[in-house]
């Protein structure tokens, strides 16, 4: 039963979402609702924007995972206890900073473009992953750690075999949050020439073409749901 | 009076009925204990009385009124309800918890405050100290007392109690049980009491309803239940040591003796010796003018203390039980301290008498013979 659910999770749901996305693209390219939207809603263009969007999200998220995970592990070590508390508090405050503000500030010192957008997304998605990694590892009960130490496990083994596996659900929760936020924030990248599906939405708002807005909105929502689903699937697989 | 007539309850989606064809009558002022293994339908039966669960068929009468024809809210406001300590509202102070039903009934504030103080005194919690605390600040036993006080706030003639002492340690539980029995002697409420602990049932109940698989197996006074179990199930439930269990049923009040001699604190060593000789015992209790227990002296302590007064050589008494405890409690204390007697004192620590081991042995032997 579980095996079947797993297979279904990797196939049916992603395929369904991809089909939704494909239908959205097909429908709006074929029915752009007027000459203006038709200039943007052409297959190569839409695919280019999707590719840009995915690239924005994936690159920034991977970078964030690659930096926040080791950092979170580091500050959860007993000898960095104070540092961990400081970081935790700083992150809690920093998380209230709106994504648009981060994007705009990045723009002021890095100029426009894809790389700036990636940087801003990276900054913003760092926080939930860092916080959850730290919180996840700290949530492992001290008695379990003591038992592991008592059995003679090395600190490396304790981290790899006890702390990380037990913290996985919380860490994955942070990663999922970060990725979903990133998909949404990436739509704002268009304001600083970062590309992505935001191009469709902002142009649509500018020239009041609902088709453009809908195409951008649905595709980015589908992307968010798809990535979230794949991550939860991966969590079930490795967790 | 509560009357159940052929009451059945089937839960949706379940093939086995929770309660089948239950007929029983609970008299006014009686403690009726529903007992049985978990899943036997005892809690369901209780909840049908205040209509937290409605019966699938059959009728329930409270004071000769068909409960299905009474508004459930009005019905419940007239029935006190005690459950394990987790049922306290964690966000309300003790006073607010106790005041729940009076507030629901719209009593004036003064009257509520007065009643809350009264109830807290009644269950032994000092209102000055505990009024504004939260349940989390109290011990398990204290919380349970609050639960009882809360149920009695509007002075309902009927109380439903669902394993009220289930979540506290055995020592606290015994104390709460004794306190409650003492309260019940004054209040004379009609009580339906659910427990899975047969010892508690025997100790608390005027009548015990043994249930199994939703059916009433036997509905009897505790003494009869122990001496004449209806079938093997009941016999197993009450256990092989039935005769010892009967010790639960007898209160020290009823059998207290005066076999151990008393002396005043001023008594001389000679006076103490003669008191021992007179009753042929090895110990003598020291009691002051207002009958308060001051200590105990045994033969061993009399060596080489000629000229001393009783008060100077008396040792503190540990083997005491409170007025209202059962013979089982008394036996437990004897075994604990390795003494052949216990002193019975009331809540002001005045000596009421003693119970001896010999007396208990005689009692159990008689039982076995009968």
């Amino acid at each position: 039963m579980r095996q079947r659910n797993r297979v279904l999770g990797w196939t049916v749901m992603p395929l369904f979402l991809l089909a939704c996305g494909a239908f959205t693209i097909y429908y709006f390219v074929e029915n752009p609702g007027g000459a203006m939207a038709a200039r943007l809603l052409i297959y190569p263009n839409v695919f280019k924007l999707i590719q840009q969007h995915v690239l924005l999200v994936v690159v920034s998220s991977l970078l964030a995972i690659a930096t926040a995970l080791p950092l979170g592990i580091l500050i959860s070590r007993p000898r960095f206890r104070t540092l961990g508390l400081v970081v935790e508090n700083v992150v809690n405050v920093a998380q209230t900073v709106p994504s648009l503000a981060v994007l705009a500030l990045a723009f002021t010192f890095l100029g426009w473009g894809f790389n700036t957008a990636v940087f801003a997304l990276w900054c913003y998605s760092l926080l939930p992953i860092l916080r959850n990694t730290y919180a996840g590892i700290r949530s492992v009960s001290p008695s379990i750690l003591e038992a592991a130490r008592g059995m003679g496990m090395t600190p490396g083994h304790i981290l790899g075999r006890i702390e990380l596996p037990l913290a996985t659900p919380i860490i994955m929760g942070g990663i999922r949050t970060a990725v979903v936020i990133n998909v949404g924030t990436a739509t704002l990248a268009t304001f600083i020439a970062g590309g992505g599906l935001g191009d469709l939405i902002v142009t649509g708002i500018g020239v009041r073409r609902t088709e453009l807005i809908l195409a951008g909105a649905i595709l980015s929502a589908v992307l968010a749901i798809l990535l979230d689903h794949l991550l939860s699937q991966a969590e079930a697989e490795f967790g | 009076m509560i009357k159940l007539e052929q009451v059945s309850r089937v839960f949706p989606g379940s093939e086995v009925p929770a309660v089948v064809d239950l007929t029983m009558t609970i008299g006014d002022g009686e403690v009726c204990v529903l007992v049985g293994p978990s899943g036997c339908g005892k809690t369901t039966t209780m909840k049908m009385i205040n209509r937290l669960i409605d019966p699938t068929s059959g009728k329930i009468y409270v004071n000769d009124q068909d409960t299905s024809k009474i508004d459930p809210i009005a019905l419940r406001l007239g029935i006190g309800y005690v459950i394990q300590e987790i049922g306290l509202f964690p966000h309300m102070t003790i006073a607010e918890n106790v005041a729940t039903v009076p507030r629901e009934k719209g009593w004036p504030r003064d009257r509520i405050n007065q009643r809350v103080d009264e109830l807290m005194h009644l269950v032994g919690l000092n209102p000055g100290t505990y009024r504004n605390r939260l349940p989390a600040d109290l011990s398990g036993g204290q919380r349970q007392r609050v639960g009882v006080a809360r149920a009695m706030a509007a002075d309902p003639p009927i109380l439903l109690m669902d394993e009220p002492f289930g979540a506290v340690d055995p020592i606290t539980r015994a104390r709460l049980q004794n306190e409650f029995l003492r309260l019940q002697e004054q209040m004379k409420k009609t009580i339906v009491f659910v427990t899975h602990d047969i010892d508690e049932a025997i100790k608390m109940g005027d009548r015990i309803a043994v249930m199994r698989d939703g059916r009433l197996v036997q509905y009897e006074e505790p003494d009869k239940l122990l001496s004449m179990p209806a079938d093997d199930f009941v016999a197993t439930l009450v256990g092989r040591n039935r005769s010892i269990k009967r010790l639960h049923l007898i209160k020290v009040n009823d059998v207290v003796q005066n076999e151990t001699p008393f002396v005043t604190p001023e008594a001389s060593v000679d006076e103490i010796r003669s008191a021992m000789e007179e009753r042929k015992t090895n110990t003598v209790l020291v009691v002051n003018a207002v009958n308060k227990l001051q200590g105990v002296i045994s033969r061993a302590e009399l060596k080489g203390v000629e000229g001393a007064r009783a008060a100077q050589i008396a040792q503190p008494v540990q083997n005491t039980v409170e007025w209202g405890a059962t013979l089982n409690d008394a036996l437990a204390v004897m075994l604990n301290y390795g003494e052949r007697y216990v002193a019975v004192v009331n809540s002001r620590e005045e000596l009421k008498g003693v119970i001896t081991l010999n007396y208990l042995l005689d009692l159990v032997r008689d039982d076995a013979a009968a």
Partner: protein
Amino acid sequence: MSFWEFFITRLDRVWALTLEHAWLILVAVAIAIAVGVLVGVLITYSRPAAHGALYFCQVMMTVPSLAMLGLLLPLFGIGFTTGVIALTLYSLLPIVRNTYLGIREINPAVIEAARGMGMRELSILRRIKLPMAFSVIMAGIRTATVMVVGIGAIAYCIGAGGLGEFIFRGISQYNKDLIVIGAVCISLLAILADFLLKRTEKRLSFRS
């Protein structure tokens, strides 16, 4: 012209826009609290409705805020009202979710005790369920408020006003000072809102 000179010459505007932004948030969150708590309470009485509502909330949260604003534009036109509607929709989601979860997390024994004592459903709700779920509901309100401060900045695109003006104008005029003022003000507003709500929660909730 240094940043501070620049800032001081625009002080009036900063203040006016900050108030405008705060007002936008306040109206949206106030409506969202009223509606969200009500919906959250109602769905506790029906499991299918609750599942439906929670799934709906989860999906809606993944719709990018920019897209949501764009979609409301043809329906409600430009201006403050559309902004309020969009922000209300967004802040509804965490409030509904947390109200539901907060009430569902209450130990059933407590609620049964209340019912058994003869409390009416309304007074159970008012005196038991809502107070006990308070801190969870407040957490939802905080999430909603902080989120909506950020989305409020984006709502400038559809003429809702507020501090987004500094950021968007700063980007299009390539004016870093404007961007910094906008970003910092919005961030401070979010941090302040979070802080105030935390204080309110601490003051109002019972010790646990």
